[in-house]
């Protein structure tokens, strides 16, 4: 029997329906897979967000822990942190949190730290970058072991007078700007300038570091390092010149010239013993060059002197000069380490930073009465007092602190203490003073840090005070100021004129010694910021006035006649002036300094407890 083929309808057996089911089923699967994919994607996004949020919370916690840490260790320790320093956090909450310092910049008042805080959670990592500002908490006293940064100026210096430093160790003269010396400096080891240095005077300076061209026409120098060109002329003698650009030498003599640029010895009489250059040498000198290494060419203009060395390029000289023994080494490399830039820290001078450190802060109130805020003075409770007169044995005597005064400045309450000794008991130390313009004349003032709002003109008298004024400071007449730390225990804590009145924060009676504090290193500090605007800051020192302590001028320092300062000078040039023009002679005497005096430490001290402040300047995610 032959197999029967079913007729047509039977052969199909519902294939259309089966096909439809199959096709629709496949489409359905596609739809479902698509939906799964999208939902899965959304879930992953949600999970990521969740994990990132967790990581962010942890990172911000870490940021706060870093702040607490900095607060705990204090500003001095925070200054020691270097890029790369890491913080480790303990505890289970801190797992997965790490922090690292990426940049640390320390300055006079504190340090600025950039810290990356990274935290991970569930595979997500969040990194928060924070910039912390750590200030305050500077330790009092303590000698600095580095070189004496005797003068720091924040703008150009034109010195036509003289500056002499006696007794400093490796005295450093820092200028943020150009330096033009037509006068003379003596006793200064190093001049650092962020701009050009032009020296014409007859000085001896061991090291000049400049970020721009150096031009020397006289004097003798040890090492000159510059990022720019060096030009010398006249009788200049230099031991070593290191220049990142060209050197043109027409001075008297140099032992070694290292230049990345070309070297030109343009004076026939110049004596240069060694020349190393990555450029070419053009020489006119007939003096011997004992060693020459030049990557470029050698050109001897004229007969030349004896030369020994190698050049990478061509050597062109009078072939009859048999003393020139130069071999040409094609591709010669002369290794010269480039000079790195000098940095001069801009010091901020703001009298208001020191107001809380003052033992006596003088101001006028709205009724034009003198108000004195007393802080840390033995025998006087901290608080605000009026300065007035009182009647003693039938005569009116001045300079008393009392809690209330009448319209003519007479104490209506029992005076608390006398804080200034005029020429006589009947003379007012502050006669003629008006709001923001203080006149101080007399015999002496109660020792301690005194603060004036406005300009202070300090006249006659012998003062054992650190004077800080938010305006200008002038000294005149027969005036002598000794900073608190300089004056020492006997003058500050056991003074006879104001018995029992001593700045208690400076005096350790049980140990019988002075406890130095940074504000006590200051003899004069002038200038302050009000709402971000600087005013005052000009210090004028009268002729022959003696200053024992450091001088910090917010704007400029002017000396008249010969001035001797037993301390450092900082001129912050925060005012409008563009340069410092010093025409007179200034002597800085750092010999025989008392142990309690640290001229370079004039940082702001908080009034009590030396509290460190840590502020977060900026934050961002990385």
């Amino acid at each position, binding site marked *: 029997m032959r197999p*029967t083929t*079913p*007729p047509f*309808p*039977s052969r199909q057996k*519902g294939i*259309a*329906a089966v096909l*439809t*089911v199959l096709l*629709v*089923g496949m*489409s*359905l699967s596609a*739809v*479902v897979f*698509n*939906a799964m994919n*999208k*939902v899965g*994607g*959304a879930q*992953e*996004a*949600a999970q*990521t*967000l969740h994990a*990132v949020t967790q990581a*962010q*919370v942890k990172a*911000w*916690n870490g*940021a*706060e822990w870093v*702040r*607490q840490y900095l*607060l705990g260790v204090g500003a001095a320790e925070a200054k020691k942190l270097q890029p790369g320093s890491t913080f480790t956090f303990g505890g289970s909450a801190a797992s997965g949190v790490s922090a690292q310092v990426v940049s640390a910049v320390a300055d006079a008042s504190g340090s600025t730290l950039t810290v990356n805080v990274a935290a991970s959670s569930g595979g997500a990592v969040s990194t928060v970058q924070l*910039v912390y500002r750590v200030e305050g908490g500077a330790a009092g006293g303590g000698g600095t072991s580095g070189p004496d940064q005797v003068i720091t100026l924040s703008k150009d210096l034109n010195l036509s007078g003289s500056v002499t430093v006696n007794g400093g160790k490796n005295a450093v003269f820092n200028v943020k700007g150009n330096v033009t010396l037509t006068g003379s400096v003596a006793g200064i080891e190093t001049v650092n300038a962020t701009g050009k240095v032009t020296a014409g005077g007859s000085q001896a300076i061991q090291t000049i570091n400049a970020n721009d061209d150096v031009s020397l026409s006289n004097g003798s120098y040890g090492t000159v390092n510059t990022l720019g060109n060096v030009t010398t002329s006249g009788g200049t003698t230099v031991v070593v010149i290191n220049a990142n650009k060209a050197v043109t030498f027409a001075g008297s003599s140099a032992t070694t010239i290292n230049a990345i640029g070309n070297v030109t010895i343009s004076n026939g009489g110049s004596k240069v013993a060694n020349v190393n250059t990555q450029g070419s040498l053009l020489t006119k000198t007939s003096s011997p060059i004992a060693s020459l290494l030049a990557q470029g060419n050698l050109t001897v203009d004229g007969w030349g002197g004896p030369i020994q060395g190698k050049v990478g390029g061509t050597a062109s000289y009078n072939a009859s000069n048999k003393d020139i023994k130069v071999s040409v080494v094609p591709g010669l490399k002369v290794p010269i380490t480039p000079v790195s830039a000098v940095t001069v820290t801009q010091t901020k001078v703001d009298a208001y930073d020191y107001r809380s450190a003052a033992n006596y802060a003088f101001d006028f109130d709205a009724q034009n009465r003198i108000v004195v805020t007393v802080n840390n003075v033995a025998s006087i409770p901290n608080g605000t007092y009026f300065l007035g007169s009182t009647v003693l044995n039938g005569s009116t005597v001045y300079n008393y602190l009392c809690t209330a005064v009448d319209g003519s400045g007479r104490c209506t309450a029992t005076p608390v203490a006398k804080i200034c000794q005029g020429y006589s008991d009947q003379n007012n130390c502050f006669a003629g003073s008006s709001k923001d313009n203080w006149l101080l004349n007399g015999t002496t003032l109660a020792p301690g840090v005194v603060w004036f709002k406005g300009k202070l003109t300090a006249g006659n008298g012998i003062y054992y005070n650190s004077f800080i004024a938010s305006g200008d400071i002038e000294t005149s007449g027969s005036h002598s100021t000794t900073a608190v730390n300089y004056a020492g225990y006997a003058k500050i804590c056991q003074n006879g004129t104001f018995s029992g009145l001593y700045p208690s924060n400076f005096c350790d009676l049980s140990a019988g010694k002075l406890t130095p504090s940074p504000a006590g290193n200051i003899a004069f500090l002038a200038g302050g910021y009000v709402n*971000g605007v600087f005013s005052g800051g000009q210090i004028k020192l009268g002729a022959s006035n003696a200053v024992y302590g450091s001088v910090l001028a917010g704007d400029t320092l002017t000396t008249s006649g010969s001035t001797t300062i037993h301390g450092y000078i900082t001129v912050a040039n925060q005012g409008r002036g563009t340069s410092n023009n010093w025409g007179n002679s200034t002597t800085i005497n750092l010999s025989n300094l008392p142990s309690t005096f640290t001229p370079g430490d004039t940082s702001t001290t908080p009034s009590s407890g030396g509290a460190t*402040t*840590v*502020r*977060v*300047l*900026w*934050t*961002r*995610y990385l």
Partner: protein
Amino acid sequence: MNKQAPHGFSLVELMVGLTLSLVVVLGLFALYRNATRTTFGPGGAAPSAELDAQLNNGLLAAQLSLQGAGFGIASASSANHLLLVRDASMAVSNNQMTVASGSTVAIGVVAAAGNALLWQSNPLQASASSAYVCQGLYVNRKTHAVYRLERPSCSNLAAQWSGGQWTANTLIAPNLLDASQALSITVGNAASCWPFGASANASGLATVGKVQVILSYGNSTRDSANSYAICLPNFAS
């Protein structure tokens, strides 16, 4: 001769078979229609998932970039370095945008709303303001798309924002959000804030932010109203 049994189906068999397959196919089509509608239809699983995913990622990107507002600028303030724009409209060409219209809104204690927020930062901590960059968030009022804007060398935001070109990155695609879900940006000066409140503000030593940005939006859940509060601690006022 044997009468051969007839092959094929009887009419009844055919009718029953056709009816059965019709029922099955119809049911399958109904299932298919429902499945596609719940997956791809309005409010379906796929667009909802995409919307939520884009919101999650887009807002995270917005937050990460917004946190850097004011970075590196000394005494950055909302008055000078942050700009809220109302009714902003930007013309797009490739990924470059230029401001067509919009008016700035003062940022104060009372929070104000807008559809573009622009800010300055100094990521390199350079001393010159020419190195500042400007960034921003922009919500298109018609398509409800969200863009992140950026332009280099932006020293004066107030003067420069309305001119010149911004480079735009799309954070949330156009026409994904409807009008009720659209992102709105509210900015106000807060008394004090800190990201995640992590700072021990009580000690009074931490710098606290004074600007709070609230990003409000709706997600795939109908009539949902969500908001995302971001504290900008770089702004001291």
